[in-house]
């Protein structure tokens, strides 16, 4: 269903006039954006600007919130994820997510990564083992955990737990990985590891990251989108946005002169 094969395909995520209301509150106001395949796009903006809400639209995490109303089109690899009759489970196989705080399951390191495969009915032991190892390697965690795969995931440090969550997201081979402030709860060394990882992962995945850390947006992303009061104010190459932003509101925000 998802068109991920075509090498010519330029964009992985495209949205057209997306509006989102929480009851009477108009949280997203007509967002149009096209995010390139195998690139990292950062969403920045003050708290409450709608960036996380918009990110959560990409795997339909807002669906269960009371009184939420979403209009417009969101295409992920050419599939309109709100209009096409697709199962949310299938969508989430295609779009992985990593949250602000590491949230490993109360299981072993191995089982955390294998979880998605097992839920999807994969029982081939060798296949699961191979995929777990590959995902842990991709998440730059393999060398640190290969001798203690049966130990509880809670024995790992915060930074390792976050990389475990990334490995868990990668195990089901998504095309898109969403990251909602993935390093904000980590120390600088763990943060640097996550950032290095993001750099590596974009070879294989399209990554969207919400961050409050503008230096982090500058370091890891190819493009940056600035949101303010539910609007997408500016979307540009990261180096352009951080050196010569077009909109005064972007300039005020990134230079710390807001409000």
């Amino acid at each position, binding site marked *: 269903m998802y068109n991920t094969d075509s090498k010519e395909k330029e964009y992985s995520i495209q949205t057209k006039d997306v509006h989102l209301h929480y009851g009477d509150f108009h949280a997203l106001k007509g967002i149009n954006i096209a995010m390139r395949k195998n690139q990292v796009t950062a969403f920045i903006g003050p708290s409450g600007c709608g960036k996380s809400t918009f990110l959560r639209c990409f795997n339909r995490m807002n669906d269960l919130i009371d009184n939420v109303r979403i209009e417009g089109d969101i295409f992920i690899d050419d599939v309109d994820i709100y209009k096409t009759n697709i199962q949310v489970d299938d969508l989430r196989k295609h779009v992985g997510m990593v949250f602000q705080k590491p949230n490993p399951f109360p299981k072993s390191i191995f089982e955390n990564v294998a979880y998605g495969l097992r839920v999807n009915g994969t029982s081939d032991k060798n296949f699961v083992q191979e995929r777990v190892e590959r995902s842990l390697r991709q998440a730059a965690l393999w060398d640190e955990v290969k001798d203690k795969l049966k130990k509880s995931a809670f024995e790992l440090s915060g930074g390792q737990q976050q990389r475990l969550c990334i490995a868990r997201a990668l195990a089901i081979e998504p095309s898109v990985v969403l990251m909602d402030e993935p390093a904000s709860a980590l120390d600088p060394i763990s943060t640097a590891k996550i950032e290095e990882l993001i750099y590596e992962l974009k070879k294989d995945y399209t990554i969207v990251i919400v961050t409050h850390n*503008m*230096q982090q947006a*500058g370091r890891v992303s190819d493009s940056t989108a600035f949101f303010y009061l539910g609007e997408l104010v500016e979307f540009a190459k990261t180096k352009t946005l*951080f*050196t*010569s932003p077009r909109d005064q509101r*972007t*300039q005020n925000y*990134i*230079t710390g002169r807001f409000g």
Partner: protein
Amino acid sequence: MNQLEKELLRIKEKVNEMWDLVTFQVNGGKAALVHADKELARKIIKRGKKVNDYDVKIDRMCENLFALFNPVAVDLRWVLAVLKINANLERIGDTAEGIARLVKEVDTAFDAELLQITQVLEMYDAAEAMLTDVRTALAEENTELAKALIKRDKVLDKINAKADKALVSYMQAHPENIAQALKVSNIIRKLERIGDQITNIAEEVVFYVDAKVVKHRQKGKRDKNKD
């Protein structure tokens, strides 16, 4: 005003103080030349050390700002521009100091005819006005003025280009005053250099305000015309 703005303001104040010193060196140079004022020439030379101290201080302040405040956008462009403006101001100061050293060496006042036919005083006036205007362009973020300055540098280039011929005629007519003529020749070359350095500053003003790189553009055009 946030902390970053306070730091930027501190650097701006230092740049202004340095600018005052360099302006004194350039403007004083003309008076010293006209009146063969050795005392003034000495003061100009002495001021060079202070200018150098400001150069180091401003560089260090910019370095700290990069490390501690991670400036972006207009702030980043401003600090990058200031680093280059600082370097150019220091060189203008050095050049003015060089002129003062030449003036200090003469025992009698420069021959008025020599100053007149070489247009060295007009050159001085043009350089002084340019230095004042480029400072205004930076303070007022006036890129029109900055762009006009880049063109105005041609006045100095033209006088410099004509000077050799005037000097040769003068030396032929006044072989007893060749030493002074050579000094004036040297001063003219230095003033032409000051014009280039002011142009560099004007280009940085355009970069800071409009985020556009205009340096080397004139040269590119000239090369194209030659082809």
